[in-house]
C-alpha cells in the first residue's frame, strides 16, 4: 500500500493506506486521534473541523494523498501546543462560559472559532454578528448562544 507522510500535532507520521482514504479516517481509525468527530462525511456539519497549516479544513473531505510531508495537521488535541499552554485561550473561554452540552461537536466548534478569530484579526477588525451567523458548525444540543459568547471572549485573549 502507498505510504503517506505528513505532520500531526507536531509529530511526523507515516501511514500505509490507500490514496483516497480521507484524513478523518486516517486520524481516527489508523492513528487513534479521536478528537475530530464524524457527523456527516460530506463537509456540511463541520464536526471534524481541524487545521492544516493553521487554516480550518474538514478532514472528512481531504484525501490523505493531498497532504505533503511538510503539511502540519492540528486537531483539537494539538491546539494547546500551538500557544505553548495547557489550554488554548478559546478552550478556556469555552470552560468559562460552560459552553459544552453533550460535547460531540465542540472540538470542531473550537477549531472553527480559532480559525474565525484569526481570519478576522488578519482583516484588522472586530468580530461581528454576521461573522458569528456565518459559522456553519451544527450543534444539535443548541448551545449556539454560549458559543457566540465564548468566541467573543476567547478572541480578546488570543
Amino acid at each position, binding site marked *: 500500500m502507498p505510504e503517506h507522510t505528513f505532520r500531526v500535532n507536531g509529530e511526523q507520521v507515516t501511514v500505509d493506506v*490507500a490514496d483516497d*482514504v480521507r484524513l478523518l479516517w486516517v486520524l481516527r481509525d489508523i492513528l487513534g486521534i479521536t478528537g475530530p468527530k464524524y457527523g456527516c462525511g460530506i463537509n*456540511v*456539519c463541520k464536526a471534524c473541523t481541524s487545521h492544516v497549516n493553521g487554516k480550518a*479544513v474538514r478532514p472528512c473531505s481531504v484525501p490523505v494523498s493531498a497532504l505533503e510531508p511538510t503539511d502540519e495537521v492540528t486537531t483539537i488535541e494539538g491546539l494547546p501546543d500551538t500557544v505553548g499552554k495547557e489550554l488554548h485561550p478559546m478552550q478556556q473561554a469555552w470552560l468559562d462560559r460552560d459552553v459544552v452540552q453533550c460535547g460531540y*461537536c465542540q472540538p470542531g466548534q473550537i477549531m472553527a472559532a480559532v480559525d474565525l478569530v484569526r481570519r478576522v484579526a488578519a482583516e484588522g477588525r472586530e468580530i461581528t454578528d454576521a461573522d458569528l451567523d456565518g459559522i456553519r458548525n451544527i450543534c*444539535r*444540543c443548541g448551545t449556539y*448562544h454560549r458559543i457566540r459568547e465564548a468566541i467573543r471572549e476567547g478572541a480578546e485573549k488570543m
Partner: protein
Amino acid sequence: MGRPEGIGRRRFLGYVIAAPTLVAAAELAPGAADAAGEGVPSQDITEILDLNDMMTAAALPTSGLITVEVGTDGTVSFALPRAEVGQGITTSTAMLIAEELSVPVERVRVTLADARPELLFNQLTGGSNTTISTYTPIRVAAAIARQRLLAAAAAELGAKAADLRLKDGVITGGTGSIAIGDVAKKAAAAAHQKVSVELTAREDFTVIGKPHNRVDALAAVTGRKKFAMDLDVPDAKPTMVCRPPTINGKPGSVANLAAVRAMPGVTDVAVISTGVAVRAATFGQCIDAVRALEVAWKPGTAEGKTDESVLRELARAEPPLPPKPPLVQAVEEKFTFYFRSNSALEPNCAVADVRGDRAEIWASLKSPIVAKQTIAAKLGLPQSKVSVHVTEGGGSFGRKLFFDAALEAAEASQKMGKPVKLMWHRADDSRQGRAHPMATSRVRATYAGGKVLGYHQRHTSVSTDLGHGLGEIITAMAAKLPVGDIGFSETFFQLSTTMSYDFGVHTRLLNETDKGFNTGSMRNVYSPDVTCARELVVDKLAAKMGKDPYRFRQDFLRGDRARAVLDKVAEAGEWGRSMPDGMAQGIAFHAEYKSVSAALVELDCRPETVNRPIRDGVAGPRVTKAVFAVDVGLAVNPCGLEAQMMGGIMDGIALALTSSLHLKDGHFLEASWDNYFYTRQWNTPPELKIIVMPDTSDEPGGAGELAVAASVSAVACAYGRATGTMPTSFPINHGTLSFEPKPTVPPVPQSPTDGLDR
C-alpha cells in the same frame, strides 16, 4: 439544623453495605408516589398524577440499590443508572452528593452504570425524569455516608460525632482533623446495616441551587471525552451497513459479495436483518464498499407512502369532536405537524464483541436493560452472558431511548465472528433512523360573554414507538392509574399533556395510526405539537374576545407559578412594544414535568430578512430576541438548567420554522445536515435571555425537554401576528423543498475530495 427538637425533620431509611470501604445505599424514595393520593380533586388528571409521578413511582421499589462509595483517597464514587447525553445529569448528581457529603464537587466521580436488570424500571432515561426520581435517593445515600464517616471519625478524634464538622472532605473537632479517605475503611460495614438519616435542609444548601459548570467540560473541550466510537476495543474495526432505498426494506440477494470482500481494507461482508454489513480497516473504506454493493431489496413498511397519503390516513383516524352547543361562538382550527428527525450529532452507533458464549456491548443507551434483554434474545445467549456498558452520548433528543445500532452491531459481530465498531452513516441516520411522528391536532374552543366555555383537542398521530421500556412501565403501573382501561400511548398522552387554562369543559384525546414508521420521541412526544396548537388557538380566542394575548393568558391561566413566569417574560421582554411592519412578538406558556415555563419571542418576517442569502441552508424569518422564564420548583444547577432551556428554545425555533422530513415514495428525502434544517447560527436569536425563577418547591421538576413547547408556540404565535395569518402547518417552510435530494441507491453519498481548497 435550624429547627427546634420535636418538630423533627423527616428521616429517611437506607443501608450501609458490607464492603472493604464505606458504601452507603439509599432506601426507597418517598414523596412523589404519595402525592397521587393527596391531590385536591381537579378537572385535570395531571394535577393528581403526571407522567413523572408514574415514572418515579415505578422506580421506587428498586431505588434502594443505588450506592455511594467513599474511597481511601477521599474520592466519592457513584455509578448513575441513567444515560448522560448532554443534559448535565452527571454534574447535577455530583452536586447532590457533594452537598450531602460536604466534599468538593470535583472529588465526586460519577460514572454511568452498566445495564442492571435488577433495577427493573429504574434505569430508563426519559420523560425529563432523572432529577425528579433520583433527587432524594442519591442524597439519602450520600447523607448516610456522611453519618458513618462522622461516627468513625468521632472514635479517632475522641469527640462526639455531633460536635464534629465536615467540610471540604475533612472532618474537624476533638483532638484535630482527619480526611474522609482516612476513615473510609473504618466507616465500612462488616454486614449490611439498615440506618436512618436526615437530609440537609434546603435553607442550609451550599451546593444545590448554585450554578456549577459541567464536570465533563474539560474532557470535552480537549477532545478527551470518549464517545462510543472513540473507545479502543481490541480489534473492533469500523463497520457500516448498506441499507435499503425505502424505510425498513429488507435485503435480498447480493450480486457482488466476493468482489466487495476483495475491496481495499474490507475484512468482512455479512447480510444482517437490516441490510448488508461491511467491516473494514477504516470507515472510509466501509463507505466505498457500501456504495459498491449490489443488493436486491425487498419492500419496506411504508412502500409508496407520501406526506399526502399519511395526511389522509390521519384524517381518517381523527377522533370526533363533541357536538357544538347552540348559542355559543367557537374557534375551530386544525394543525398539521410533519415528520421530524430526532438525529443527534453523534449518529446511531455501538461497539459489539460477540463470542460463542458471551457478548459485550458499548453504546449510549437510555434503556440499557431492554437493550440487554433484546440483544440476548437475538444472539441466543442467556442475559447473564451479555454485558452492556453505557457510554457517554453525543446527544439524544429521544433517539437513544432505542438501541437500533447496538442490536445491529451484536448481530454483525456474531455473523462475522469478530468485534465491530458499527456506525450509521448520516444518510442512514436521517432516512432509516427514528423520526417524530407526523400528527394533526384539531382544536375547538367555545366562548360566550367573556368566558371560555369549553376546550376540546383531538390529536391524531402516526404511532409513536414506546417499545423501549416506557411502555413496560406504563403497562405495569396501569392498574394503579385513575385513567381506566386505555392503551399506553393514550395513557402517556393523558399524563404528559395538561390543560393549564381555566377554559371550562375540557377534553383531549389521542388516536394513533400506522405502525410502519421508525418513530420515537424528540425532546418530548406530544407536548410541543399539542401546546403549539393550543397556544395558537389561545391567540385567536384573545383576538375574537378583543383581548391582548398576554392579558388574556394572564386572565385564564391557573396557578400563581404559571402567572409568575408569564408576567416575568412579559416584563423582561417588554411585551407590547412597538415593532416595524413585518415584525411581531409572540408569547406562550407550557407546564409539564412539575415545571412551568413561558416564552416571549420577537420575529422578523420582513422580506429582506426572510430572503437573505444562505449557502446550502434555509434563512426564513429570524427570531431576533427570545426571553424565557422557567420555574422547575427547585433548580439543582441553574447553569445547567439555563443550558437546557437554551437548547429547547433552539429546538422550538427549528420546529416552527425550518426542520422537517419530507416523505416520498416510501422514504424520507433528507439525507444529511444540508437537507435537514435544524437551527443554525444564522437562525439563532442574537438576543437571548433566560430567567430561572426563584425556587417554589422543595423538590425539583423536570427540565430536559421542557423548553421546546413554549418556544415553538411563541414563534408560531409571533409568525401569525407578524404576517396577519395564523400558521396551521409546521414547520412553516415544509411546502418548499430547499435542497436537491440525494440518491437512495447507493444509500450513502461519497465524501468530497476538495477539503483543502475550501
